[in-house]
């Protein structure tokens, strides 16, 4: 995705993933899933992330719960991006995404639609929203899941 994407397109991407999230669902059979509840202590956001990891590969990723536009859209896009990737590649994407959010140098080649969150630092209170999903994914891969 080119970095020159217009603000109007960015809005549309965020709103689309908020209004019609592709990965917002609880897996019908939770047997092979690891999950983590990300209940923000500073706002209303409260989501649970579900990852199915087979060997080294993320076979499925989804989330459910109540959250704002920024949390919902970023988590939805992240889930889509890490599916069918190795845990190592997924962690790399999460790392680059967080580098972008925290205004560090980042590799935009792996971020795809996540680039729409590049303005997050302008509203400091939104950093927590934008990183709720990425922190949860990172925690599960690092073995810190609830289940």
């Amino acid at each position, binding site marked *: 995705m080119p970095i020159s994407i217009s*603000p109007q397109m*960015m*809005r549309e991407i*965020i*709103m689309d993933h908020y209004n019609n999230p592709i990965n917002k669902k609880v897996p019908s059979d939770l047997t092979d899933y690891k999950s983590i509840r990300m209940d923000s202590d500073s*706002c*209303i*956001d409260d989501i649970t992330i579900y990852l199915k990891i087979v060997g080294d590969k993320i076979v499925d990723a989804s989330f459910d719960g*109540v*959250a*704002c*536009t*920024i949390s919902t859209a970023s988590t939805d896009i992240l889930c889509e991006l890490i599916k069918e990737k190795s845990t190592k590649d997924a962690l790399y994407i999460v790392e680059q995404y967080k580098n972008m959010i925290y205004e560090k140098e980042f590799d935009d080649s792996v971020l795809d639609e996540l680039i729409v969150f590049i*303005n*997050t630092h*302008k*509203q*400091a*209170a*939104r950093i927590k*929203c934008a990183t709720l999903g990425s922190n949860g994914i990172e925690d599960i891969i690092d073995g810190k899941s609830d289940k």
Partner: protein
Amino acid sequence: MFDVTKIRNDFPMLDGTKKSSNNKPLIYLDNAATTFKPYSVIEACDEYYKNESVNAHRGDYDVAYKVDSKIDEIREKVAKFFNAKKIEIVFTSGCSMSMNLVAFGYGFKYLKEGDEILLTEAEHASNVLPWFKVSELTGAKIRYIPLTKEGRLTAENLKKVMNEHVKVVSVAQVTNVLGFKNDIKELSKIAHEYGAILVCDAAQSAPHMKIDVKDLDCDFMCLSGHKMCGPTGIGVLYGKYELLKITDPFMTGGGDNARFDMCGNVAYLEPPAKFEAGTMNIAGIYGLGAAIDYLSAIGMDEIEKYEGELHDYAISKLKTIKDLIIYNETADSGIITLNYKGVFAQDEASYLNSHGICVRSGEHCAKLLKDILKVPATVRVSLYFYNTKEEIDALYEALKNGGNFLDAYFN
């Protein structure tokens, strides 16, 4: 004569220099969370730290005696403000501690299995969670007085659930999400007919209206200083003296006992001292005294009247915004709870922040929202007497475009 321009000059937070990070002048509409402090309150706290910075309850030297006397004077002032007796005023850290003191010092001591505690679904967590704990520890049951469709508590509804097992009725005088005023006097009367006590959560009422505890006839009343222009970390528990006498201290330690020996014999001081173990927030007490002076000089009736006008003005303007949902148009306080159609509450609050407007988004009490508001979260606008029509106009202008909340994210 109520002069809001003159009043605003009393508050450093309103001196025009405070800005949001995108350099918009601050419009503070989150007064149900906490309020700004006038210079006189800040100076009173400073006075303690600068000139009288010694401990109270230690009368061996002049300055200590002065601090003791001042605390005594302020206790008298607080008592007068609420038409209570001085010995019925306990200083706490805030409304939550006052509530916990009642729940643990009285509820935990006297309630038992089979007893009932009556609350409503509109109560703040500080008036719910301590009672959950009491219920867990004593086996007493918690029940909820049904609210009207609008979310109000009525005397009729209390009568419907009252019975001889009810020992405690604990409700807010003004509810924190919907801003409805409850008739505490009538509710107390009903509770007393069945031999129950009435605990009044005055956190959202004491800052905005005149309160006469003798007239209300409530048994305990809890409030925070910081919601009424006072410092944080100071609050009040009022209790009828005969009840305070049989209530246990929630915290024990230095300053609340007359003498004790190592065999476990303790003689506690009389109320209120028996509830005030440890060194108190003395600067906070000085500040609370100044806050009460400040509010009294303006007049609580004047404050309530002005806030009522401001509220009606706000509702009349906001009502004209097509996609704005207002949940409590008829509130009896400066609390306006709303949502913009299709926009998550937190996104709306964040958008208002980009206009320099401070409001609170939250899911408040989940149960209440589910039954009455039927939404997961709302935006709460809460006014105080230093807010202006111009600030309401700015809120209105911002909310007119409330659907374009992502503006905040891209500009």
